[in-house]
């Protein structure tokens, strides 16, 4: 017990706060995560609609949907690295 105090360690210093990003960063990352899930749904819906009605423009929209998923996923990774 004495050694514990000599090393200036106390339970107050053991906290998850230092390991986790602060609240506002967590909120931003969560919002981007939600956008990523939403982008996946958008892309899936476009793929299904393109299967339903086959047109040339539909395949361009499908590519746009896939690109959107890629962009949002990149943002998610970037936010985790930068924040």
């Amino acid at each position, binding site marked *: 017990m004495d050694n514990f105090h000599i090393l200036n360690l106390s339970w107050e210093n053991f906290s998850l706060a230092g390991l986790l990003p602060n609240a506002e960063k967590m909120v931003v990352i969560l919002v981007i995560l939600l956008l990523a899930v939403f982008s996946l749904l958008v892309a899936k819906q476009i793929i299904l609609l393109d299967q*339903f009605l086959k047109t040339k423009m539909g395949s361009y929209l499908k590519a746009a949907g896939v690109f959107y998923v890629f962009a949002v996923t990149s943002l998610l990774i970037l936010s985790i690295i930068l924040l």
Partner: protein
Amino acid sequence: MADQSPKPLPIQFIAQNPNEQVYYLFRRNFVTNLPWMVLMFMLLIIPFVFLPYSEQFSFWTSLSEEMQFILLLLWILAVCGYGLMNLVRWYFEVFLVTDKRVLDIDMVGFLYRNVAEAQLKSIQDVSHTQGGVFQLLFNFGNVYIQTAGTVQNIEVKEVSNPGLVHDIVTDLASQIDG
């Protein structure tokens, strides 16, 4: 005498029968996209209008540069997602007329899809409505197709030239009836 029969379009859909040909494809008038396009444009330029005055917003200046960059990208991507969603919705909400039936694909929100179909021979009554400044100015309106029995009635919303659509459907239905 010129051939008055409609020409098949190079369009395929998933429930198409082997010998079925798509004669017409209608979608909402492009003008109906203006509200979301204007909103999207305004949402896109908002950050760039306010960024030069960002020093006046203490919330924004209290954030780190990385956070500001991420939030700006998040805003742009969210607005682009909104635009993509609306564009896809407009493009795939179609009314198809084939030599055998009519098909109406509607989307409620973005994730829910409703496909209504009626055989040309079961069509009993077709009507259309057109009113209001924009509908008269840009010539679009709603077409209602009433079918026999328990088959769902079809409502084609904000289609261009509703009078022509009305005429096409009634002509094809009467041809099938003989």
